[in-house]
């Protein structure tokens, strides 16, 4: 290989224009090594992380850390090539610079699967170690890198304490809710302490899943022949299921100032779910009497990440889809760098939005969601 993957992609003509645009990215991923994180963990969990670090690592698949078989189908030669990973803050800054991304919000790699760890104490210890490691190794090392605390759903009280502890941390701009394999769904009242803490800290909660085959709704996707089928539905179904769960238990009624964002499922499912819920509501309102208006009235205040942005033959369709859920003010650009289905900002930049809406989606909506300025400094500490 004579040039690196990103170097080769620099296309002067298109890139020039992108560089003039402020781009805030609501979702990029750091590669967390259990060995590095061990230094931030208490005993005896430190030993568990050190031990996980000695085991052979496969992509998003490490025993005792991110358990579960990632690949179900046969492996053939060729294909997309090895998984990309970002292991240091300086590597991240450099790569985001090449992608013309000014400010980015960091999420984990392996710990996308935190919710499937069965032991409550261990899950909470891993979350604490990750939060401390992320702040020390990433958020305080390079400008423009912001991060989300991870909230272990296994131990909501502990997650709430973590949120309170780091509420004023300059680089912390959100709380990541692991959504792959989470049980019960995020609307359950069991999680109220997390929402209370996030609302008190004025930090948004960010739902993020990963494709998984797991015996928990809606991840029982083993019935599909192909990864195409599993991947098409796993992210989207989990966002739908959790949105429906949160709306129908009234999370946004219990926590009216909480900002909620759904990521990595594209946007075309949002008009669908709004219309389904509004239809059900007219018949079954008395099950959800705390809703004083149609579900869509609430869902229009939720935020949605663009990635993996749909690519209809007519790009205008995306403009229409966005309008259908009032998404001009609530859609935030997300690249998902460096993952296999990341979106280059050029893809969203080129959509036929008005200049005003384009600016909102590429940056301004994210500034409101995360309460940051254009440089990525928090405006609420």
């Amino acid at each position, binding site marked *: *290989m*004579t*040039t690196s*993957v990103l*170097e*080769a*992609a620099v*296309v002067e003509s*298109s890139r020039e224009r992108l560089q003039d645009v402020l781009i805030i990215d609501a979702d990029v991923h750091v590669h967390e090594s259990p060995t590095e994180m061990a230094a931030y963990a208490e005993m005896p969990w430190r030993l568990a992380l050190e031990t996980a670090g000695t085991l052979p690592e496969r992509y998003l698949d490490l025993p005792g850390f991110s358990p579960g078989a990632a690949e179900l189908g046969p492996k*053939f*030669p*060729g*294909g*997309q*090539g090895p998984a990309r990973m970002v292991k240091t803050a300086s590597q991240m800054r450099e790569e985001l610079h090449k992608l013309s991304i000014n400010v980015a919000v960091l999420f984990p790699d392996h710990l996308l699967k935190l919710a499937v760890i069965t032991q409550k104490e261990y899950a909470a210890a891993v979350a604490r170690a990750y939060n401390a490691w992320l702040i020390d190794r990433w958020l305080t090392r390079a400008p423009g890198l912001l991060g989300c605390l991870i909230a272990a759903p296994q131990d909501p009280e502990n997650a709430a304490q973590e949120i309170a502890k780091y509420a004023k941390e300059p680089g912390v701009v959100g709380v990541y809710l692991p959504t792959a394999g989470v049980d019960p769904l995020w609307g359950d009242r069991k999680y109220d302490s997390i929402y209370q803490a996030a609302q008190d800290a004025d930090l948004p909660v960010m739902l993020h899943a990963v494709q998984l085959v797991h015996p928990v709704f809606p991840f029982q996707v083993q019935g599909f022949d192909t990864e195409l089928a599993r991947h098409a539905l796993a992210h989207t179904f989990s966002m739908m299921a959790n949105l429906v769960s949160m709306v129908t238990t009234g999370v946004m009624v219990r926590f009216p100032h909480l900002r909620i964002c759904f990521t990595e499922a594209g946007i075309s499912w949002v008009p669908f779910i709004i219309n389904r819920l509004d239809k059900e509501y007219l018949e079954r309102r008395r099950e959800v009497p705390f809703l004083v208006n149609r579900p869509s009235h609430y869902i229009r205040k939720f935020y949605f990440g663009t990635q993996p942005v749909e690519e209809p033959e007519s790009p205008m369709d995306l403009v229409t889809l966005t309008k259908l859920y009032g998404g001009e003010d609530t859609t935030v650009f997300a690249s998902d760098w460096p993952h*296999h*289905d*990341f*979106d*280059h900002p*050029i*893809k969203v930049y080129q959509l036929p939005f008005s200049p005003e809406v384009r600016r909102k989606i590429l940056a301004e909506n994210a500034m409101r969601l995360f309460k940051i300025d254009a440089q990525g400094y928090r405006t609420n500490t």
Partner: protein
Amino acid sequence: MAQQREAIAVAPLADFPDGSHKVVKINGREVGIFNVGGTFHALPNLCPHQLGPLCLGRVSGTLDRRPETGWQLQWIHDGEIVTCPWHGMEYHISTGQCLAYPEVRLRTYEVWVEDGMVMLRK
């Protein structure tokens, strides 16, 4: 007056063993040069999808399964397909045809071997 486009010596033939491919920079333009079974092909290193560096991808074959073959899974085009490392779109190296989108076909460059050098016309 029609002008013959310039022929450029890319690299010695020895740099391109059978089955290999490389990206070279020619007048600021990145071109992927492929040796597929002794025949040379050249494609732009720019994926029309999201401008990824497609010629840095892996070269391999691909899978087929259709009514004409009784729905049997088959390995086809071995060594003739390049897969973009960004999102995995596949292209047929000799024609530039994108396998997923019938309407997408990359331009190809004229490339040949002369006096032990791989030559390319811009």
